[in-house]
């Protein structure tokens, strides 16, 4: 199943990558990330006085000999990174060649695999008109196949509603979040980004567009039908109207980028024409999401 979503060769290359976090994280289980909490690792952090209930295995007996006081050696706790993937599966994502939804699945799978390979915890949420949980958190490389299968099981359809993401985001512990969407839903994406900021999420907004909507490849008369709402409108594509559309799309992209930066999030606009390898190895590295 995993091979169906991502090629083994790509998976091997992904194992050499890691999610980059700007600050220490706190997870529920041990992992490879520096935690805000002191814990068990080989990296010394600090001393503190012993209080009853502390693990006496951590008492520094050498200090006791010199100071006649119980001192605890504190070590940097290495914990898992909670990675939340929010994946847009609205009707507008089921469009373009290569298909945006399919590319979003592969991209989410790639990012998730990077996290799983680093023993980070991955939580998946897909959304359209409302959020849908992708099941229990996934952890470890073995969970990748299940995660990939789950990714591919979600249908597309419905109208994008970013406001419905506010509640599930607010439930997340501080960590990293990656929101993958075409950003074309009519309501603003800003409420969801604001919720990410409040939930102390660092991460990225990845806008995924098909090449056919970045540069129009047709002209003339047409009846346009909205992929999400089903609304229709007569339209004549001329150089003037095409330019007007491109301006509107660029304006929408700029709005998302500004909102992301305002909320301390990274932003990248991706085209489905780019190979997943290139997106991960180049673009996501450039914005500092992966390293």
């Amino acid at each position, binding site marked *: 199943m995993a091979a169906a979503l991502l090629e083994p060769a790509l998976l091997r290359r992904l194992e050499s990558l890691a999610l980059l976090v700007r600050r220490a994280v706190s997870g529920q289980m041990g992992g490879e990330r520096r935690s805000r909490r002191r814990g068990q690792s080989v990296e010394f952090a600090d001393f503190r006085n012993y209080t009853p209930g502390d693990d006496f295995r951590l008492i520094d007996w050498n200090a006791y000999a010199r100071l006649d006081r119980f001192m605890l050696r504190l070590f940097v706790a290495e914990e898992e990174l909670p990675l939340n993937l929010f994946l847009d599966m609205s009707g507008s994502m089921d469009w373009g060649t290569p298909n945006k939804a399919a590319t979003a699945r592969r991209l989410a799978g790639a990012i998730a695999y990077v996290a799983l390979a680093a023993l980070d915890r991955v939580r998946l949420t897909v959304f359209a008109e409302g959020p849908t949980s992708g099941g229990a958190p996934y952890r470890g490389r073995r969970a990748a196949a299940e995660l990939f299968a789950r990714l591919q099981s979600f249908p597309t359809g419905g109208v994008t509603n970013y406001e419905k993401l506010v509640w599930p985001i607010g439930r997340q512990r501080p960590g990293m979040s990656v929101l993958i969407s075409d950003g074309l839903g009519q309501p603003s994406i800003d409420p969801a980004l604001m919720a990410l900021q409040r939930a102390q999420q660092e991460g990225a907004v990845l806008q995924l567009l098909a090449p056919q909507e970045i540069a129009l490849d047709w002209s003339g008369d047409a009846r346009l039908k909205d992929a999400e709402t089903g609304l229709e409108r007569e339209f*004549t594509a001329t*150089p003037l*109207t095409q330019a007007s559309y491109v301006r509107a799309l660029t304006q929408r992209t700029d709005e998302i980028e500004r909102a992301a930066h305002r909320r301390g999030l990274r932003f990248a606009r991706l085209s489905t024409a780019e190979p997943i390898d290139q997106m991960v190895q180049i673009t996501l590295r450039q914005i500092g999401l992966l390293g």
Partner: protein
Amino acid sequence: MSFLAPAAAVLALTLPAILALYFLKIRRPTRIVPALHLWPDQIRDRQANVPWQRLRPSWLLFLQLLAAGVLVAAAVQPVLPARAALARHSIVLLDASASMQATDVTPSRLGDAKRQVNALIDQLGPQDRMTIIAVASSARIVASATGDRDTLHRAVNGVIASNGAADLSAALAMAAGLVRAGDDARAYLFSDGIVQPLRASFAAGLPFPVEYHRVGVSGENVGLTSLTVRTGAQSRAAYLHVQNFGQQTRSVSVEWRADNHLLDVRPLSLQAGQAQDLVLPVPSDATSVTARLAAGDIFGLDDAATAVARTPRAFRVLLVTAGNVFLEQALRLRTDLQVDVIASAAYRPSATYALTVFDRFSPPVMPDGPYLMVDPPAGSALAGRQPVGIGRVRAVDAGDPLLANVDLQDVHVARSQDLRNSTFGRPLISSLQTPLVLVRDEPFRQVLFGFDLHESDLPLRIAFPILVQNLSEWMLPPSVPSHSFHPAEPVTIVPEPGATTVTVIRPDGSRRSLATASIATFADTDLTGLYTVEQSIAGKVQRSWFSVNLFSDPISQLKPPDRLTLPPTRTTAVQATHPGQLEIWPWIALAALTIVTAEWLAFHRGL
């Protein structure tokens, strides 16, 4: 306003057709897009293939209807009445003479005249015809009775100004020959009015009226009207006549050159109408002298003059007489004649003389060559019958070039041999009783006087030396005359004996070959300047020269007359004229093209 092609109005049906296309609804293919709200709400119907829809206001529709309407307007060819009164057959006499080169109007008088003629052509109706005659030293039809405007425009624009005078008489005669009785014709003369005097034959009138359209405004011109080189006993000098024909004082400078080497530059100030003569010594080895006026005026053709400085080759003439001082002096007036006088007893036939003059003596055998016989003795071969008393003396043909400037009004002859039965030749001067002077061309140019000069007062008149000069030049034309000719004036060139080639090199360097077998008339003299005649004789090239100059006071005056005396109209037919037509469809078509371009731009910009 009227229309030349009203049937084309049927094309107006395209307007409702265009409108109908906009009523048709477009069958649009459905395209699914991710976000409809990003697409501008702009619809333009480009194709119509399913009925019907509500008509939407559209710039394209407006522009297409406008373009179609304007194209239909152009197709019906509307015409506006023009100012000119045209006949069915318009004859344009376009002056292309020397004075039309004046630049007092832009670009020149001829250019301005062409502009006016082109405007007249544009006003021709579909039934009208036009003939265009270029008037210069000769008249030339450049377009004959055609209504094809392109042909007429091309013909007019192809006319170039000559350096000769305008022979309006020839042009009018040519125009009269084109018009049949009862034709609705009218002539339009586009000229500065500087034309040669009309011939008296036009007094009876023309079969069409002539309108004079004056071209040109100014007469401010300084010109050279004469340049001659005279050879004295010791030296040679050039005499130049400069005249200010304008109304303002002009300061000019005269540049002298001999064989293109600068000799002198003289400043000169001339009052209005003032003339001045300048004299300049000419080097003895000079071939030609050129005077050039740095006047910078409106007419350049008379600002340069060229004269030949070489003296012509002399002819030997034998006068056989018992004594005739009149005849001897008259012959000696011609500087290129070397006259030997002998008594009749000493006469021996000789080939060394180009001309022999027999005065009251007839040799047993007449020489093979030109001769002038005066009063042949009774009984000789050329003698006439018994002398008769003579009354009034008259010219047989006053226009005969041999009698040019010969005034016979006060000439009397006491008596003359009766030459009425003479077979010598044609009579030149005659009386009621008998021909007095006969001339013939064959076998040689020869002249016979039937009376003794001493029995006439002709030798006492100024007419006599002129007559002798005319006759001697006719019998002994110089191989190449060295004096100045007017533009387009024919020049008689007599090839030297033994000449194998005769070539004339014009001032612009072009060469013309002439026949060597006979006397040639060279008429390609429209250019002013120095002409060189090269003759190859026994492998050697012999050069001689003649010059062509404007030297015409009437032309140099330049001032166009306000009125021009033209022949009256000799016709009883009513001169039915109609206003000319000014076709405006090219402008309408241009407007249509502009609208179509705007529509194309609007289409591609998606307006």
